[in-house]
């Protein structure tokens, strides 16, 4: 099976801070892969490298066979990236924002109208898409941004903490959309979260990251069995205790 992501020995230094310490993991095509760990573990750094925003200090990472350092433009054409603290342009309406974003992907099969229809469905915001983004609640913004990330059916969607800061209703909607979309559209999803129960519900496979290192990787069931744990939270505690 083709690998969507192949990260090998990724190291990233920010001055004296070692954010990633020889992190290696692979993501298969059409799977939902979760990168889980506590705050400051290196999740966002790994996602930013794969999203071509920053370069690794050493190590390599391929996205569908394209090297993140040598072919960032090619990668940007097939991925969509949703940062953890992402926002939308406050003075544009939801429609204008989505239409602006869709414009960059037109020509790859779908028309902007098709993408807008898809986005309306994913966001579930209905007529509120006509309102300026500045009037949206946190949950509505996140739904709009998720719609933006998925509407163009990317080969790989990189979602950094997709339900961060959302209430139960919005978080449920976002999780549901990610699951449905990955299943029906065949989109590969790499997401990060410190909510391990959420990852357990969503992901086919996961990698546990702590202090910049991948400390375990596999299917949630396999990991739970291996560490005789009831859930991924317990797996994480067990792995870090042993490590």
């Amino acid at each position: 099976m083709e690998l969507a992501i192949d990260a090998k020995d990724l190291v990233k230094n920010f001055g004296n801070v070692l954010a990633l310490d020889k992190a290696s993991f692979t993501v298969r095509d059409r799977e939902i892969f979760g990168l889980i760990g506590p705050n400051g573990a290196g999740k966002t750094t790994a996602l930013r490298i794969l999203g071509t925003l920053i370069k690794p200090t050493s190590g390599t990472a391929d996205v569908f066979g394209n090297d993140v350092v040598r072919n960032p433009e090619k990668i940007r054409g097939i991925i969509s990236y949703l940062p953890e603290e992402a926002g939308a342009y406050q003075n544009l309406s939801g429609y204008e924002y989505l239409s602006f974003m869709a414009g960059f992907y037109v020509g790859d099969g779908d028309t902007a109208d098709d993408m807008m229809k898809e986005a309306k469905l994913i966001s579930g915001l209905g007529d509120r898409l006509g309102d300026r983004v500045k009037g949206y609640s946190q949950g509505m913004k996140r739904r709009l941004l998720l719609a933006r990330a998925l509407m163009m059916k990317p080969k790989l969607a990189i979602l950094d903490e997709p339900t961060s800061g959302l209430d139960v209703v919005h978080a449920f909607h976002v999780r549901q959309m990610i699951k449905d979309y990955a299943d029906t559209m065949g989109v590969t999803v790499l997401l990060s979260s410190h909510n391990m129960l959420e990852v357990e519900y969503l992901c086919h496979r996961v990698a546990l990251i702590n202090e910049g290192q991948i400390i375990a990787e596999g299917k949630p069931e396999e990991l739970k069995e291996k560490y005789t744990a009831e859930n991924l939270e317990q797996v994480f505690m067990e792995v870090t205790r042993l490590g």
Partner: protein
Amino acid sequence: MGSLTALIIKEVKELIRDPKILIGVILMPLIIFPIMGSAISISQESVQRALISASFAIYNEDQGLVTDAFLEYLYANNTVVPLQAASLEEAIAAFQETNATTLLHIREGYSDNITRGLKGELKIYANLKSLSIAEAGTTDTLGGLVNIYSYVLSITKINTLLEQVGEAVDARNVRNPLTVDYASIIKGTVLEVAPSSIFSIIMSQSILLPVMMMVMLMFAIQMAATSIALEKEQKTLETLMTLPVGRMTILSGKLAGSIVVGVGGAISYMIGFSYYMTSAFSFAPEMTSMTTGDVGLGLEPIGMLLLGVNIFITLVSGLALAISLATFTDDVRSAQSLTGFLILPVILPAIILMFSDISMLPPTVQWILLAIPYTHSILASKAAFLGNYQLVIRSIAYIAGFTVAVLYIAARIFSTERIITSRFTSFSLRRLLRRR
């Protein structure tokens, strides 16, 4: 729609829909300047009304035909308050009780002195109640009336004397025996215009140009800094950087969007400013009746083209500089504070060159000014009007070189992860200063 066009439209929409920018940059100049102009116009009109309706008091201590004729002249077409008093002190006290702003004291012996060919002595007292311009004007009005009468008296006297000696000469020529006509030579053409008039036109032009350049640059710098800082503040920059569009296209979109809004702001500023000038100085139409074209200083097509190129390159360099600086900040407020430092190199040459020619300055100041690229923008604009195209091209070349360097830096920042990871906090600033 192309990616660049989409980016420019997005930039313009985002900026002009921001109430701070819409009101502060576009609408305020259109509202504030006309209000200021109207306020000045209203006060000037009130000054003029005060001058027309000004009344003065007269305390006369003299008797005689010459005094009667003088009083007849003063009473005609003027509001005069005659004062009856036993002494000058009483007259001054009575004068202060009236609405008159000036008091004319005709001393005893005035008529006799004039008849005997001596000086007639007068004294004017001004009662300064409000210390306003209108008060100064009314004092001048009475002084003016006295001067006119003095001239008429002297002409009459000269005529009488000429008749006595039998000379057939115009009394006015005896009074003013010399006459001088002025002409100015500009670019080899002799113009029948006094140099003082030319200087007043050039002065207004040399003030207008640096002001225009300065205002436009300041607006554009503010726009560009706001545009990049808004992306950071609203957390949209990361997403933008992962879109399938070149970083240079994103940078160009930001530059072009900021130029559009910056120029819009400058246009609204200039409309407001010109409205201010015409309304505030409507009482002095001669100030605006002559143009640079009338005195042979109008722009030729090549001058116009070079001026356009100069303005464009200056704008781009200011924007690129602002964008480069703003990438190190996290929000609009810190971006605007940081780019506030850019105002100094913009404003300094504008103010100095507004009042002085660069060649008149001490050599050290000249070198410092010439090192600042924005000095060259102003020099080029002035030179374009004077038809000195060599200087225009040299200045454009200097600022173009600077612009390329700044654009390169901006492009480098945009193409590296610095745009995402750079932070310019008060902490990092303190650390930087300590290290220095």
